[in-house]
């Protein structure tokens, strides 16, 4: 099985500070992969670099094609989409227009289908479609950000901290939706601090610390790893203190 996204030996720097060091990862078709790690580990930086927002040194390929020469807009057209940490919505435009612009790169007929699909996933957005994006609640804004990304019918959706600052009940909702995306044929690369929730829906996981991957494996393996449990899941297995 060839990988949908493959990143090899990636380095990302802010000036002289290297925020991501020699990171390699891949995401297969119809797979949910998560990168967990503490604040400041370099997760957001890595996602932004894969999207082309930040320059990345190393190899990146998407759907079998090298991405090095592509800018953000080309990557979007190729089917890669990022829902950024700060959501970057069009605050002074209404929900419907935000979604419409999400379908900027695809033909109009497909956009109509996308509308139906997104409204089915997030019925709340349909209720609020004439409301300005900036006046939505945090949870609704996250739904809108995801909805806008899905409007473009991406092959791979990259989500950056979708649960950040949201009430637990909404977080559960968001994660359930992410799980449903797989059925719709969308692969997901999920960056999360909420490791517990992320590991529950993911197939595979990478653990990032200080700009490097220190662990990788199936989500269940990672979840049962003692070190991960101690650092990120907030509880200790027996004997974990021995590490």
């Amino acid at each position, binding site marked *: 099985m060839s990988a949908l996204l493959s990143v090899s030996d990636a380095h990302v720097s802010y000036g002289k500070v290297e925020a991501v060091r020699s990171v390699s990862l891949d995401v297969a078709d119809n797979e949910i992969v998560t990168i967990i790690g503490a604040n400041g580990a370099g997760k957001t930086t890595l996602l932004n670099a894969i*999207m082309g*927002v930040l320059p990345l040194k190393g190899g990146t390929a998407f759907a079998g094609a090298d991405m090095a*020469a592509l800018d*953000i*807009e080309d990557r*979007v*057209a190729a089917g890669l*989409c*990022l829902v*950024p940490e700060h*959501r*970057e*919505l*069009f*605050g*002074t*435009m209404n929900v419907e*227009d935000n979604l*419409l*612009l*999400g379908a*900027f*790169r695809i033909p109009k007929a497909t956009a109509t289908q996308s509308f139906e699909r997104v409204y089915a996933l997030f019925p709340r957005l349909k209720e609020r479609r004439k409301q300005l994006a900036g006046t939505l609640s945090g949870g609704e804004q996250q739904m809108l950000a995801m909805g*806008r*990304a899905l*409007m*473009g019918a991406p092959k791979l959706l990259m989500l950056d901290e979708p649960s950040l600052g949201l009430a637990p009940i909404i977080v559960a909702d968001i994660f359930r939706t992410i799980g449903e995306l797989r059925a719709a044929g969308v692969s997901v690369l999920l960056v999360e601090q909420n490791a517990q929730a992320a590991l529950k829906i993911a197939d595979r996981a990478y653990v990032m610390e200080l700009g490097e991957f220190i662990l990788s494996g199936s989500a269940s393996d990672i979840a049962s790893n003692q070190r991960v449990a101690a650092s990120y899941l907030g509880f200790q297995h027996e004997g974990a203190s021995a590490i």
Partner: protein
Amino acid sequence: MNTTIMLFLLQDGITNGAIYALLGLALVLVFAVTRVILIPQGEFVTFGALSYAVLATGKVPGTAWLALAMGATAFALDLFDARRSLRLKRVLRSLALNIALPAAILALTYGLAGPKTPIAVNIALSLLIVAAIGLFLYRIAFQPLAHTSVLVLLISSVGCHLALQGLGLVFFGAEGLRGPALSNAALTIGPLRFTGQSLAVYGLTIAFIVALWLFFGFTLTGKALRATAVNRLGARLVGIRTTLSGQIAFLLAALIGAISGILIVPITTLYYDTGFLIGLKGFIAAIIGGLVSYPLTAVAALLVGSVEAFSSFYASNFKEVIVFTLILPVLVLRSLAAPAVEEEKD
């Protein structure tokens, strides 16, 4: 002062104000989409007006050649930018836009220009020429700086203004020019006489405001432009090319500038450097509108026009002083009303 004089002044003010409104709208549009404060807006006015005036005498204006030269520069920049991944499709597209288009406009101008060319054709030609210049100006002077601060963009903008003004002197000479009126019809209501020209000014201003409103409110391209203005990164993440948005904004601004120029050149003699002052008055209206509000800008422009008309009657020596002083209370009020101005992040 009697009522008749007041009505005359008001009419004069509103006619000028309508022109300032057009220019102010273009400035707001360009600033919103690209963060560029478009000082060369005035040059679009002069280039449009004087190209039209030169075409009316049956000659080909130098601006047509300028468009081709700028297109060639833009093409060279495109090639240089894409040097690492030269794809035939991209090169051909750039060639069509940057070389073929201005060459076609130049050929068209040579083919059509003559002493008997209809006014409508001359207008269309000058609009085409100036639109192309606007498009290439963005590509050459602003697209490479798109990520920099407002201040850097402003410096580039001032540079463009000086360069284009100098070129204006080369193309049109130091003598002022006038163009033929769009229509010689006139309408008299009470003491006021409305010339066809001033009616065209009102009509086109209103038409442009409505067209802009429709464009930004109801078309995908218009919404994409607004989205670029609201959130650049967000726009890029949905695949909107911010360079394309910038090009469209400059194209529209150049068109609006040229139309304004063509509307006033039959009324007043324009010199190669007149545009700057006209553009600045549009700028005052745009500042009063906070560089964001289209309706406020339009209203402010009418105010600027009226103040100008009245002050030219009472204190014509201080006309410009009075008009530009308008900006001071506005700036004071704005800075008081918004104490926590968001600092430029990038």
